[in-house]
Each structure stands twice: as C-alpha cells, then as structure tokens.
C-alpha cells in the first residue's frame, strides 16, 4: 500500500507531529473538520464543526449510528451533504487522498496479510509505526509475528498505529480502547493527546463516560441516528 499522491508532510518523531500551517494560516476561523447536513438513507443529517487540536467524543447505544457517521465522513458509505477539511471541500480530493487525511479506524480492525509489516507502507510510516509500538505498551518483537498470534488488545493497538502512522489531520476512531485494560488505555490516550497538541482533530466513539470527559472538548450522544449534545 504505497501512497499514490502527496500526503501531509510526515514527521519522523513518534509522538508529536508538526505539520506546516494550512493555507488559511494559524488561528483562522476555518475549522479543521466541518460537516454540513451530512446524511444517508440510514443516518443523519449531521452538522459538526471540529477545530484543529480538538476532540469530539460520541457515546450512544449499539446500532445508534455512531460507526455509520464515522464511515460517512471517511466516504466509505454512500452519503450526501458536505464535508470540509480546513475549508477545502471533500469532493476536491480523490477518494484515497481523502481517506488518508480523514483516517477511519474500525472497532473491529481488518487484516490483509498473515504478517504485521505489510500492513504498513514501507519507509517513513513503517519506521513511525515501529517507534510508536513501545509507547502503546507493545513489544517490538510483535512487529515480526503473525497477525493470528496477536491478542485482541494487541491487534487493536496495532490497528490504531496503522492510522497514526499516516499522520493524518483528522482521526476517526471507533472504540479504539474497547479491548484494552486501564494502563493500555492511558497510554493510548497519552499518544492521542500529543496528536491533539500537534493540531490533529479527533472524532472518537467511546462507551466510557470517563474517556469522553478526559479527551472530548465536545461531547455528543447518538440517539436514533441523530447527534445530540451531551
């Protein structure tokens, strides 16, 4: 999986990422991510504005449409309405280019190779992934073991690293700590906070009110496929 066009500049350091100021400049009124009447036959409409470096947490019962929302933003499901990244319309990006900027990490990650390394593009991203592993409590040797031998929690953290390794401006995380214990959850949150400090906008689905309180500047509840402020 080699990127086919220019992604955002990648920083080799594992945690904090610095990306060049957007065309609008620092402190511009354009939010990093903006949804305008985003909807499909199954959910919405959704309106949301997320500034650079902020996190919105979404709670709500299973089947209420939380994953649908994240998938629609990533353009994985058919949808209508507008999505903007730093004021740029989504349809101005090719679909792969958009998904590398608004990266969706599913609650149940998929794997397409027997071993771990091919899941990371060779080069800077793979090095970044290796460097992130110890930060999330993963032994470096796991990188060379078969995917099938990893535990659920290890797979979940590796899937998160897959998304982080692309260093995207927007992260769409579906229960990234659902299978993790308290310590691992704290490690994940520490890395996410560094990304927030670097300007990334994060939309996170979580069942934990504590996690929502710790990370989310904005907090929402999904109710019958609509978003309500919590």
């Amino acid at each position: 999986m080699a990127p086919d066009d220019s992604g955002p500049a990648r920083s080799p350091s594992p945690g904090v990422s610095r990306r060049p100021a957007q065309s609008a400049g620092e402190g511009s009124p354009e939010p990093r991510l903006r949804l305008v009447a985003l909807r499909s036959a199954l959910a919405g409409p959704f309106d949301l504005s997320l500034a650079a470096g902020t996190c919105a947490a979404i709670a709500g019962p299973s089947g209420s449409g939380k994953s649908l929302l994240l998938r629609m933003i990533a353009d994985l499901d058919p949808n209508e309405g507008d999505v903007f990244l730093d004021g740029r319309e989504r349809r101005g990006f090719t679909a792969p280019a958009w998904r590398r900027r608004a990266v969706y990490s599913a609650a149940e990650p998929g794997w397409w190779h027997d071993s771990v390394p091919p899941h990371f593009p060779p080069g800077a991203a793979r090095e970044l992934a290796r460097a992130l592993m110890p930060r999330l409590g993963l032994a470096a040797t796991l990188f060379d073991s078969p995917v099938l031998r990893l535990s659920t929690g290890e797979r979940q953290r590796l899937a998160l690293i897959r998304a982080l390794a692309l260093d995207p401006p927007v992260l769409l995380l579906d229960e990234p700590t659902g299978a993790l214990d308290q310590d691992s959850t704290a490690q994940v949150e520490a890395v996410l906070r560094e990304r927030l400090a670097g300007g990334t906008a994060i939309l996170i689905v979580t069942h934990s009110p504590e996690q929502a309180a710790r990370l989310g500047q904005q907090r929402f509840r999904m109710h019958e496929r609509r978003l309500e402020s919590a």
Partner: protein
Amino acid sequence: MNPILLSPFDVAIAAVLILVDAGLSLALRLGLHRQLVWAALRMVVQLVLVGFILRTVFALASPPVTLAVVLVMVAIAGREVAARPEQRLGRFGNYAVGGSAVAIATFLTAILALTTAIRPQPWYDPRYAIPLAGIVLGSVLNGASLALDSMLGGVLRERTAIEAQLALGVPFYQAIRGLLRASVRRGLLPIINQMSAAGIITLPGIMTGQILAGMDPLEAAKYQILLIFLLSGGAGLAAVVVVYLVAFRLTDDRQRLRIDRLTAKG
C-alpha cells in the same frame, strides 16, 4: 478413416449396464434407481435431439442459423454461471457478468481457432464452428463459474480486510487485488489439472473419440493439444473478464466497497 457405425441394438446392449446399476441400487437400498434411469433417459433424448438439430444446421450451412445456435449455447452457459454462486449482484448483475464473460471468451477463442489453426472453408462452416464453440464453452463455463463464485464469496469474507485498506487510503483496485488474483487462479485450476493429467491419468475425450472414429493417434493427439490450448485460453479469459466486471460492479466513483449491491440467493 472408416468409423465403425453403431446400430441401435449395439447401444441397447450398453444400456443394460444402466439396468444393472439400477438393480444394484434396489438390492442395496441405495434409493438411486429412479434418479439413475431418469438421468439416463434424459441424456439419450438430449443427445439424439442435439444430433438431429446439428444434422439440420450442418445441412443448412447458413451463417445466421449457425450464429443463432451458438448464441443460444452461450446464453444457456451464461445462465449456469450466474446461477451457481450463493450471492447475487444487484440489477441482474450475475447474468450480465456471466453472459458477457462467456460470450467474450467463447467468441474470441473460437474465432481465433477457426481463422488461424483449423481454417475450414468458409471459416464459419457450422460443422467446425458449432462443435468448437461447444467444447470451448464447457471450459469457459467452468472458469467463469468458479471465478464468479470465488469473487462473490470472497468479497463478503474479506470485507473488513478490504475496507480496512480503503480506510487507510489504499485505492480500490489495489485493496481488492489479492481477491482478484485468487479468483482467477481458482478459475484456471481445473484446466491446469486437466493439462497435467492429460494422457497419463485420462485419455482426453476428443482424442478418444477421434481414435475410435479411425484417426491416426498422433493426428488425434495434435488435435487434442490444440483444443486444450484453446480451452485454457478460454477459461483464463473468462475468469479475468468475470473478476474485473464484478470488481467494477462492487465499487463506485468514490472507490467504496459497495457490499450493499450484493444480496443472498433467495
């Protein structure tokens, strides 16, 4: 080349074997006798009917009639390909995919053989065109059917893996590449097996038929080799057409995996 002609009585003697099978089924309570006799009767009626039709079509020697016969054969094979998988592509996708793959592969392969290798005069002489299209169709049907089944089943099974790649910005055709390869491979396996077993484990049907009909074994072998090449070409072409048509129908202008276009058989 003087074929030994069979009289109806000669055939009837062989039919005794079917009765023996049926008797065994009764004696051993296998419950197969009815099915067995029915299938044998069907086979006889079908083949005699086809013999009569071919005799008429050969006598007519009319290109439109020849084309119509081949098109009917292609349509039946396309339907078989479409009906096999457990899943259905929306808007009669299975029929569109099966029909076009069978038609493209059969026509290309048969026309290539008729205009370059076998070269009857004229090249569309029904005595050559129809049997050749028929034997190529058999192989094309196999290849297309296995490839389609592998694609539709595989895309459901590997959905999370494909979507995980899409979510990371991998282009659609790259994300589905592994499945495309596996499906083409599956479509080609029978013909590869047939090639490696040819002559050692089985004496291929065409060669056997031509030897029985009085042809020199080496000449018969050459014919068989040519035909097996054609069969491989047809099966490979059909499998490739199937996987790309299916992939095309399972995605859209935003490179999504449109699993919603797939429904279970019912």
